[in-house]
C-alpha cells in the first residue's frame, strides 16, 4: 500500500488512541510519539518524554506471584512485602528496560511504553477507523511527546493520510528548527499549538526552554505556511494560570496572529500522576486542579480580546 522507503521510516510510538474527541474536529485517532525536547513540570504523559522504551508498572495489578523476579536477566526486581501483600518492585537505576518481565507477567502489571513503528504500520492502524472519520469530519492527530523530533516520519505519515483522504492535525510544542516545522506541517490541515507561558523566563523555568522559538514558529505556521491553528494553553495553577498570563497570551494571539484563531484553555488534570508512579518517578510536581470558576474567569479574559475561547480541547 504505502510505497517504498517512505513506508519504512519509523518512530517510537507509545500509544495509538482511537475515538479521541478532544484533539481536533470529529472522531480522531491520535498517534502519540515518544520523545520530547521540553520538560514541562506538569507533563500529563510523562512516559512520552524520553525517546527510548521505558518500563511502566501497575502496582494494583501485581499479585506478587514472583514470575518477573525469576525472569529478570539482571536480577533487579525484588519483592516488597507490606502486610499480607507482596509486590514486585524494580530497581530503576539498574533496570535496562529490556522488557523480559513484561511477557512473563500474566496480570498485565508491566508494560513497555514505546516501540518503533513504521509509517506503514501506523497508517494501516489509523485507516481502520476511516468510516468514523468520514462521518464525523475527523481524522488523524499526531501528538506526543513531540512530533517535531520526527519530521521525516510525521511528514510521511501525514502524507499517506492525505493520500487516503484523511483530515490531518498536528499537536505540537513548536520547539524546533524551521526544517522540521516545514516537514511536519507539509501535509497538516490543522495545527494544535501550545503556548505554555508568555513570559520567556517563566516558560524556561517550567518547561526547560525559552519561548522565543516557539512563538516565532507559531507565527510562521499561521502566516507563512497558512495553516489553520488552535492555540492550546494548559492551565496549571501556580504556574501559568494568572489572568495576566492568559491576557498576555490572548493579546499575542490577537496582535501577532489574528482574532479568528480560537484559543482552548485546557484545565490541569492529575491523571499524569499515576503514570509517574508507573514509571517510578519520584518527587513529581503536584498541584490542585483549577476551579470551574477560575477557568470561567480565564475564559472571559480571553473572550475580552474578541477570541473564540473554549474550556477543554
Amino acid at each position: 500500500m504505502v510505497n517504498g522507503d517512505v513506508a519504512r521510516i519509523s518512530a517510537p510510538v507509545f500509544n495509538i488512541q482511537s475515538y479521541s474527541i478532544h484533539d481536533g474536529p470529529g472522531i480522531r485517532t491520535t498517534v502519540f510519539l515518544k520523545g520530547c525536547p521540553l520538560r514541562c513540570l506538569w507533563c500529563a504523559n510523562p512516559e512520552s518524554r524520553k525517546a527510548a522504551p521505558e518500563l511502566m508498572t501497575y502496582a494494583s495489578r501485581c499479585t506478587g506471584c514472583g514470575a518477573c523476579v525469576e525472569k529478570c536477566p539482571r536480577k533487579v526486581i525484588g519483592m516488597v512485602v507490606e502486610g499480607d501483600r507482596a509486590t514486585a518492585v524494580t530497581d530503576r537505576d539498574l533496570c535496562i528496560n529490556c522488557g523480559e518481565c513484561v511477557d512473563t507477567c500474566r496480570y498485565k502489571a508491566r508494560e513497555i511504553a514505546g516501540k518503533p513503528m513504521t509509517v506503514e504500520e501506523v497508517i494501516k492502524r489509523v485507516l481502520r477507523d476511516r468510516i468514523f472519520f468520514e462521518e464525523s469530519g475527523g481524522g488523524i492527530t499526531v501528538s506526543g511527546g513531540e512530533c517535531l523530533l520526527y519530521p521525516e516520519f510525521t511528514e510521511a505519515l501525514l502524507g499517506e493520510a492525505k493520500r487516503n483522504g484523511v483530515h490531518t492535525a498536528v499537536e505540537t510544542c513548536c520547539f524546533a528548527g524551521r526544517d522540521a516545522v516545514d516537514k511536519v506541517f507539509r501535509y497538516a490541515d490543522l495545527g494544535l499549538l501550545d503556548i505554555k507561558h508568555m513570559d520567556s523566563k517563566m516558560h524556561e523555568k517550567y518547561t526547560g526552554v525559552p519561548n522565543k522559538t516557539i512563538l516565532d514558529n507559531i507565527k510562521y505556521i499561521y502566516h507563512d505556511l497558512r495553516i489553520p491553528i488552535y492555540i492550546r494553553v494548559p492551565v496549571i495553577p501556580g504556574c501559568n494560570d494568572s489572568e495576566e498570563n492568559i491576557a498576555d497570551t490572548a493579546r499575542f494571539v490577537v496582535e501577532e496572529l489574528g482574532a479568528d484563531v480560537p484559543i482552548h484553555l485546557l484545565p490541569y488534570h492529575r491523571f499524569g500522576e499515576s503514570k509517574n508512579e508507573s514509571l517510578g518517578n519520584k518527587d513529581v510536581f503536584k498541584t490542585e486542579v483549577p476551579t470551574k470558576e477560575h477557568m470561567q474567569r480565564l475564559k472571559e479574559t480571553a473572550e475580552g480580546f474578541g477570541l473564540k475561547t473554549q474550556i477543554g480541547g
Partner: protein
Amino acid sequence: MRKAFEINEDLLAEIDKTVLDDRRLRWKEAVRNASFKLHTDRTKYAAESWRSTVGEDIQIRRAKLFKHIAENVDIDILEYDYIVGRIGPTILGNYTSIDICGDYLDGLWDDTGELQITLHDQTACSPEDLEILRDCVRTFRGQNPVDCIKKTWREILGDWPDDSLEAHIKDPDLTSGNFGNSSNTIDFEIILNKGLKYYIEEATRRMEEFKANFGQQPDQFLFWRSAVIVCQACIDHAKRYAALARKKAETEKDEKRRAELLDIAETCEYVPENPARNFREAMQSMVLAGLGKALEHPMFNQPHWGRGDQYLYPFFINDIKNKKITAQDALSMLAEVIGRWGTQHMIAGSLHKQTHQITFGINSMNLGGITPEGFDGSNELSYLFLHAVGLLQQSSPTVIINWNSQTPHWLMRKSIETNKLTGGGIPLFENDEMIVNSYVRDGVPLEEARTWFGRGCVWPALPQRSEYKGGAAAFNSAAALHMALHNGVAITGKQLGPQTGDPREFKTFEELWDAYVEQHKFGIQRTLWLADLAREIQYKYIRLPYLSTVSIRDCMESGRDTMMPSVKCEYGITDRAIIDVADSLYAVKKLVFEDKVLTMSELMDALDSNFEGERGEEIRQMCLNAPKYGNDIDEVDEMAAKVGEMSAKSVTEWDHSPYPAFKSVREGLSWHYAAGLGVGALPNGRLALEPLDDASASPMRGMDVNGPTAALNSVLKANFGKYTYVSALNQKFPRNLVETEAGIENLVAYTVAFLKAGGTHIQYNIVDTEELKDAKIHPENHQNLIVRVGGFSAYFVQLSPQIQDDIIGRQEHCLN
C-alpha cells in the same frame, strides 16, 4: 431526499420546551412509593366462567371468559388519570395468567402464602386470595396449553425437554406464556380510524355470508362469533369507565376536575367503539383497547406502540395545526400513556424472571423509519415521543430508532440527547435497511417489510403476521460448546447431546470444531422441533379471540384464531452466546493447536476444576490473554464470523415447510445471566456459572481494550447482518464523552458510521459514577473503560486509585 412529512422546526423547538406537568410528577412520585399489587378478581372470574361453559367450543369459551372478566373486574379512576383505564384499580398491579400458563406462580402452594410476584416484590396473600389462585390452578389443571404441551413433549422426547431447560440449553420455559403470538401488537391504525365497531360489523357480515353460502367450516363462524363477543365486551368495559367517571363527577368538589371527569365520561362513551376524532380520543381509545390485551392474557399485557409516530401523526398534527392542543398538551397525554404502559409489570414464573431480569411487559415503540411507500417517516411526533421518554426516564418502553440513510440529523441528535438523559440504552438504534432487506430476501413483499416493528425488545416482527415460539425463544450456543467439551454431557451431568468424543483425545482444532457443530445442530434442531410440536398442540387448549381480532387482519379474513397454525406467520429464535463460543474456540486453537503452550488435557483439567488447582490460575490468565473479539484483530473476528454463520444457518436451514423458515434474531435482554448457569468454565477465561457476554454482538466484558471504534470494526467484520436480522451490541461511554456539543455530535456520527457500514443494532449505556466506582474495585471487568482528555492517553483502569477517585468526582461534569 423523499419525505413523508414536512417538518415544522418551530414545533420541534416548542416540543423541546415541554415538561412533565405537575400531575405527571405526582404520579411518578406515587409510583416510586407504591408497592405492586396482585389482583385476584380476574383469576376468580376466569375460573367461574370456565366452569360455566363446560361443553361449549373453546373459541366461545375463551370469548365468554373475556366477557365475564371485562364485565366484572374492579376498576378505578385515580386522581392522576386524564386518560383512564389501567390494569386493576391500583397504581401498580396486575393479574395472573393461571388460566393460560397453569401452575406457574412461585410459592403458591407454600403455607406461608408469600408469593414472589415480581423480581423485587413479594406479597403476602390473604387466605381468601390464595384460595382463589389455587382454585383457578385446579380448574385449569390439565386444560391449559402449558400442561398439555409438556405432556405431549414428554410422550415424544422423554425427559429431554425438562432436562434441557434445567441445563439452560434453551429458554424460556413454557410458563412464560410466550407461546404462540401472545406478544402481537395491537392494530391501532384500524382501531383509531374505524373503531372497534368495525370489527363487530365485519364479523357480523361474515357470519351472514357464511350462512347464506352454506359455509363448511364451523370454526370460522365460531371465530367471528367470538370476535363480536370480545369487541362488544371491550366497548362495554369502556362504558363502565364512563359510568364511573360520571359517578365520581357527582361528588367531585373541584370544579376543574369535575369538568374533566365529565369529559372523560363522554370520551369513553365514544371510543374505542368509534373512530377517534382527535388526539385526546386517540390516546383514550388506545388505552382502553390496549387494556383488552391485558384482560385476556395479563402476562402479555403490553399493547406495543409499534409505529406510533406514523398512525398517531394525523391526530396529533391536525390538533396542533387547528390549535386544539398545544405541544405541552400533547406531551402531557403522551407521557401519561407512556408512563402507564411502561410501569405495567407482569406476574411471571421464576425462570422467566431469571432469564429476563425484569418483570415489566416489554412495551416497545419504533420511531422514524421508512413508510410503506419508501419515504422517510420521521416527524414531529417522533421527536415528541423521544422528548417524553427523556423526561420520564423509565426503563420501559424500549425505544427503537429505525435508522436508515434518510433518517434526519435532528432525530439522531435528539436520540443521543435522550440517551444521555436516560443513561441506559433508550433509545437504541436498529438498521432499518438491513432488516427490510432481510425480510425481502426471505420473501416478504417490500411494502410489508417496511412496516416491521420491534416486538418487545429488539426483535423485528411484522405486525400482520403471527409469530410462533412455543417454549423456544433462545438457544444457548455456549451450552453446546460445554457439551462438545464433555462428550455431550451437560452441566447437570446428564447426557443431553450426542457423544462427540473425549476432547482430551482431539488431535486437531477441526475435531473440536466438528464436535461443537454437531452439538450445536443437535440442540438447535431439538429446540426448533419442540416449537413446531407446540404449535400443533397449543391451539387445542388456548384461543385469544380478542388479540386475534384486534391484531392480525388475516384472522378476521380467514376466520381463524391467531393460535391456529397458519403459514402466514413468522418464526424466529435467538441463537445466543456466539461471542463466548468464538473467543473460546479461538483461544483453544491458538493456545493448544498453534502455539502449543497447552495440551487439551491440561486445558480440560483447568476447565473442569474451574481454573482452580495448581496450574488453574496460570492457565486462566493464558486464556484471558488470548486475543479477543472486539479489538479489531482479524483472526479472532473471523472466528466470530464463522461461528455466527454456522449458527444462523443451523437455524434458517431447519425445514418445516410449509411454514416459513426460522429467522436468527440475536436479541439482548438479560438472558446471559441465566444462560451462564448452563455453562462451565470456558476457554475464554470465563469462570463456571458466571454470566455469559451480554447482548449478542458485544465483546467479552471489559476485554475490548482497543477503543470503541475497534469494537465496532470487529462487529462489522464478523458480518452478523448477513445471516441474522439483528445482533445486539451494547457499548458503554463515560458521561463526560457526551457532555459537550461536539461530544454529542461525535456520538451521532459514530452511530451513523456503524449503521451505514452494516451494523444491525447498537445501544449505549452512558456510564455513571456507580460504574466507575465498580471499575475501581474490579478493574478486570472494566478494562475497556476509556478516559478521553485533550492530548492525554490512558484507560480508566490504568490510573491509580486516587486519580480514579478524582475522575469519579468529576464524572458529573465535563472532564475537559
